[in-house]
């Protein structure tokens, strides 16, 4: 018995592909249409509507709420203003990433934490002696992501809150038609977009309102396959795919620190203490052993490899999520964990863990590809993330 999301009644109706998958014990659409292509293009050209309710959500309240989150997150949560949203990982004592998500300061002593994995126990265990309440609102809070260049226009029709003044990584309470919601200028596509957080019981009317208001602008319900391509273009890592959370790692080699995942910018070593700080301070001094970078596969080289067997290059339409070796010279220097064809950039992209010495942008490497049952190596170049970074994302 899997759970369904609060929008299931609507998403089930439009999911003509019947392509469902699991996400945190829920069923969600892989794609609604028979192919996910149009859903992807809606993200970049109009607006795509994602049901992101399976995210874990925790409401942290009380005098010590900031103190608790500041002691867990690597970012400076205590310094956040009301209305700020922080993207942050959190680590174990060894400085290895347990999970990543966002912390939104809803009020002086009220925060909402979103996470990919359940984290109630971790929050509680860190809260010993603190005056704070932790409420798991995963079930009671529904969430949608409206992403794409038209997202602001669509959303603005339904609310009096001036969305042009809602800056990147800010959050505000608003009324969407008659429903109280919070709207954050955040997303997982690297595009202009919003995430809408609401009470479970308002899920259906809010969905309907968005579809109604968005239809003239080309709003399209979109599934996880489309999202996967967009997040790779945006250079955003995915838990369980691009990194193994320390809690699930079977051996230390499977774990990664924020520095190794290239989110060292989130590590605020000026804070007096947070879980993992001593280890991370040491790593910062030493320099990380690994880097998580972008990789652009050289198309000409790939074409040549296909040509050798008498074929034109072929790539699957969906992004892949397997581990693929990456070489420098004859030596394996890392592995790519996600990749795929960018329909927008017309490039073959991948995200890869590389030994630090081979991770400088521009470094020429080779990635393993399988062509006609044979393993080959295609030339690739280390690229800066994000691959796609439109002005409108922050504007």
């Amino acid at each position, binding site marked *: 018995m*899997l*759970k369904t999301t609060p929008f299931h009644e609507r998403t089930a109706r439009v999911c003509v592909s019947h392509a469902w998958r699991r996400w945190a014990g829920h069923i969600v659409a892989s794609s609604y249409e028979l192919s996910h292509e149009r859903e992807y293009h809606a993200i970049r050209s109009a607006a795509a509507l994602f049901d992101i309710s399976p995210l874990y959500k925790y409401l942290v309240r009380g005098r010590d709420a900031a103190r608790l989150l500041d002691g867990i997150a690597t970012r400076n949560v205590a310094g956040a203003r009301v209305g700020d949203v922080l993207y942050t990982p959190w680590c174990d004592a060894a400085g290895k990433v347990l999970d990543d998500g966002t912390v939104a300061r809803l009020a002086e002593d009220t925060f909402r934490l979103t996470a990919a994995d*359940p984290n*109630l126990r*971790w929050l509680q265990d860190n809260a010993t002696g603190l005056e704070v309440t932790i409420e798991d609102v995963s079930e009671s809070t529904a969430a949608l992501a409206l992403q794409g260049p038209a997202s602001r226009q669509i959303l603005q029709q339904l609310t009096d809150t001036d969305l042009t003044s809602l800056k990147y990584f800010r959050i505000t309470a608003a009324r969407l038609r008659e429903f109280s919601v919070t709207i954050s200028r955040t997303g997982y596509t690297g595009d202009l977009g919003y995430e809408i957080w609401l009470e479970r019981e308002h899920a259906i009317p809010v969905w309907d309102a968005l579809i109604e208001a968005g239809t003239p602008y080309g709003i399209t319900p979109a599934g996880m396959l489309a999202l996967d391509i967009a997040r790779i273009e945006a250079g955003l890592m995915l838990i369980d795919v691009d990194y193994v959370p320390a*809690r699930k790692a*079977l051996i*230390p080699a499977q774990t990664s620190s924020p520095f190794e995942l290239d989110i060292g910018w989130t590590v605020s070593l000026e804070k007096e203490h947070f879980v993992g700080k001593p280890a991370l301070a040491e790593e910062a001094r030493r320099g990380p052993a690994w880097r998580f970078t972008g990789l652009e596969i050289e198309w000409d080289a790939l074409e040549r490899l296909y040509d050798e067997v008498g074929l034109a290059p072929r790539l699957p339409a969906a992004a892949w999520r397997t581990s693929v070796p990456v070489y420098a010279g004859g030596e394996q220097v890392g592995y790519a964990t996600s990749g795929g064809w960018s329909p927008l950039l017309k490039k073959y992209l991948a995200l890869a863990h590389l030994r630090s010495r081979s991770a400088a942008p521009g470094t020429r490497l080779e990635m393993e590809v399988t062509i006609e049952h044979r393993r080959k190596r295609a030339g690739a170049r280390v690229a800066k993330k994000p691959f796609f970074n439109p002005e409108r994302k922050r504007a």
Partner: protein
Amino acid sequence: MPASYDAIVIGGGHNGLVCAAYLARAGKRVVVLERRDEVGGAAVSEEVFPGFTFSTYSYVVSLLRPEIIRDLDLPRHGLHILPLESTLTPLANGDYLAQWSDHDQNHRELARHSARDAEALEEFGRLMHQMARAVKPLLGMVPPDPASLAPRDLLGLMRVARHVRGLGPGAFHALCKLMTMSAADYLDEWFETDALKATKSASGIIGTLLGPRSPGTAYVLLHHYMGEIDGVFRAWGFAKGGNGSVSAAIAGAARALGAEIRTGAPVARVLVGNGRATGVALESGEEIAAQCVVSGVDPRRTFIELVGAEHLPSEFVEAIRRFKFRGSSGKVNLALGALPDFTCLPGAGPHLRGAISISPSVDYLERAYDEAKYGECSRRPYLDIVIPSMIDPAMAPPGRHVMSIFVQYAPYAVNGGWTEARRAAFGDAVIDTLAEYAPNIRSAILHRQVITPADIERTLGLSEGNIFQGELTLQQMFFLRPAPAWAKYQTPIHALWQCGAGTHPGGGVMGASGRNAALTMLGSAR
């Protein structure tokens, strides 16, 4: 008397059969001598009531070594292990706790009781997986003798030390704790849901006269995770046709490899001459000579009864006498006209295809133990129930069912001894307990078979009715099983070997003792 056999295996239990099969595979002339009219020892399927077949004694397959299945090609000889998918624990308050094999379903169910525990379970599972990996190499190992200065033993000890030191601090300390703590204390560090702790800790008390709060019971928690690291993802299974088909498959393999199996051939004693085993004498008076003798029966029976203390060094006899059996469990087998209807989860759902555990709380189990400690049967015992006919319908006539109930505690040394009345009272306590959770059970019962530790001893020859041929406690494990210096399947009598569960690693339908013994005899053990 000319030796017509290379080896005689005493006892056709699964370890004896495994040992014989491996010896035969190496080209040895082997005969297995089984006292009863069928092989299998405690792993037998019997049509106890017409049309109703029971795995009379042992009833699940948990740790049967995959290498034995592969080496002896057991599936070709009829072995098919079907998955047991769930465990249902009915609670005193009318609710239940179910454990499912699907991760998401399991998480959701446990989160219903405690979101914290649902999270902790993942981490716990990861640690147990690590632990199982840490312990696995030791299971297949011939235990070195820690007091010996022989190079072989020193090397063995160094190998153990290197392995243990290679675990890293997290795993090493967790292993130390698992070896020394009680299941209840260990689980307290992880979980808050009482029924979850109780059901998990129940695996730690099986076959011992210990309670969930007794130190030394945590280690057995590992067994549930042991199967996983062999790539067998459903560790607990049910053999199609009952556990007798496990024995039949091994016997079939042994015969195919050239071993001879004689049933109805009880051994009276091991023939010893000049400090060396030369053969056996059957109760019928027949004597059979062999190059060596391997005993698959338990250490007390082997050394005190079949060999005789007079042939053995006194410290060794002392150690064997000290070896604790203390059978503590019994079985109730029911032929049912209808399925049980559990008040907590009415109807015939998927939960009846798995195990049903009457272990509502740790205190419940501990109280059951308290009574056994002083020589009484538990008034409200721990029950581990399976309904094999739900998994393999051929076990019962169409529409009817067989139910196997493992019961603990029923102490062997019950006050006043086991009598007919005692046995009936014991059976009644089991039915009364079950009826509290499934009230229709009384009317569904067509036949009932009650097996006490005394019955197990009498019928199967297991001393004090201990299902593991001796308690599986820390002081009786690895190089201490069954006696220090004699844990390497050898015995103080030249050419007499041991291959039963009373040797390392012992316990359960695992076969490792039989395999290790055979490989040691053949000189190819690691």
